[in-house]
C-alpha cells in the first residue's frame, strides 16, 4: 500500500535506514512535524508537499525547504 511520512529533521535519518518509500523531512523542532501550533498555513503546505511525493516514484526522501516559524515570525 502506498505510504508517505513526515519526519522532523532530528529523525530525518530514520526513513533511509528503515527503507521507507516516501518521506518529507521538515526543518521543525521535535514534536512539531507539520509546523507551529496555530500555523495552519504551514501545516497544510507541509501536508500538500508530502502528498505530492506520492505521485513521484523516484524521489523517496525530500526536505521541506522552509525553516520553522512561530506565530511571532509570520
Amino acid at each position: 500500500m502506498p505510504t508517505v511520512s513526515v519526519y522532523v529533521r532530528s529523525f530525518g535519518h530514520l526513513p533511509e535506514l528503515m527503507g521507507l518509500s516516501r518521506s518529507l523531512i521538515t526543518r521543525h523542532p521535535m514534536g512539531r512535524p507539520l509546523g507551529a501550533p496555530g500555523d495552519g498555513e504551514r501545516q497544510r503546505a507541509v501536508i500538500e508537499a508530502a502528498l505530492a511525493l506520492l505521485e513521484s516514484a523516484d524521489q523517496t526522501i525530500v526536505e521541506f525547504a522552509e525553516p520553522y516559524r512561530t506565530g511571532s515570525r509570520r
Partner: protein
Amino acid sequence: MSDETEPAETIEDLRKSFWYGSRSNLSFKYLKDLSDAEFGDFVDELLTEVASMIDSGDPTGVIDAAYRWQIQAYTGHLGDPNDFPHRFDDVPINPLPKPLSECRVTLLSSSGHFVAGDDPKPFGVESMTQAEAEARIGEFLKEAPSLSSIPVDVDPAELRVRHGGYPTDAVRSDHQVGFPIGHLADLAADGVIGALNPTAFSFVGAASQVRLKRMVAPEWAEQLGNDGKTDVVFLVPL
C-alpha cells in the same frame, strides 16, 4: 546548606538529569547524548541567544540553537548504520493505484491521541497523566502499542493526547501539528485527495519496536488493506 556527604553533581549527571531524571524535560532530553564539551557549547550558545533576545525580543536565535543541538544530539552519535536494529535495505515503491484526487487517504499518527471516554488505559490505568506516562517510559518501551480509532469529525475539544516520548505541548494546544484530521478533510473537500477515511488512527510510538514491527504493525496493515476505505496511508511519526 548542602549535605557534605553527598557527592557533587558532575556535568554528566547534569546532562542525564534531563532524560527522565530529576530535571526531566522532553524538549531537552537529548542533552544526555551530548559530550560534556558539546554540552558546554550548547549552554554557551543558548545563553548568548537568550541575552540577545532580551533586547531584540526576537526568539529566532534561541529556537534555532535548540533546533540545531537537537539535530546534533540525535544524528551526531549514530554510530555504524549497519548496527541499526530496524534497518531495511529494500525500498518498496508502491505506485498510486489511481490519481491522488481519486485516492482514499487514511491518517495514522504515533502522536498518542485518543478520544475522551475511549482511553486506551495503558497498563490498565485510566486517565494516566502525562507526567505518569513520562515516569513509566521504560514500561511503555517494553510493550506493544494499542491503536486508537478516532472519527475525523470528532470535536477537537474531545481529543486527548498522552505520550511519554516527545514534548506534547504543541500538539496539546493544536492537534493539527501532529494529527491533521482537519487539514486532510479540507484537502478532500478541495479535491486534492479523493476522500479521507472517516476513521483516523493514533498510537503511542514510544513502544517496543520489535513488538510493533513483528506483531501489531502487520495486523494494522492488513486491517487497512481490507477496510475498503484506504488507498494511501499518511504517516506522521512524532
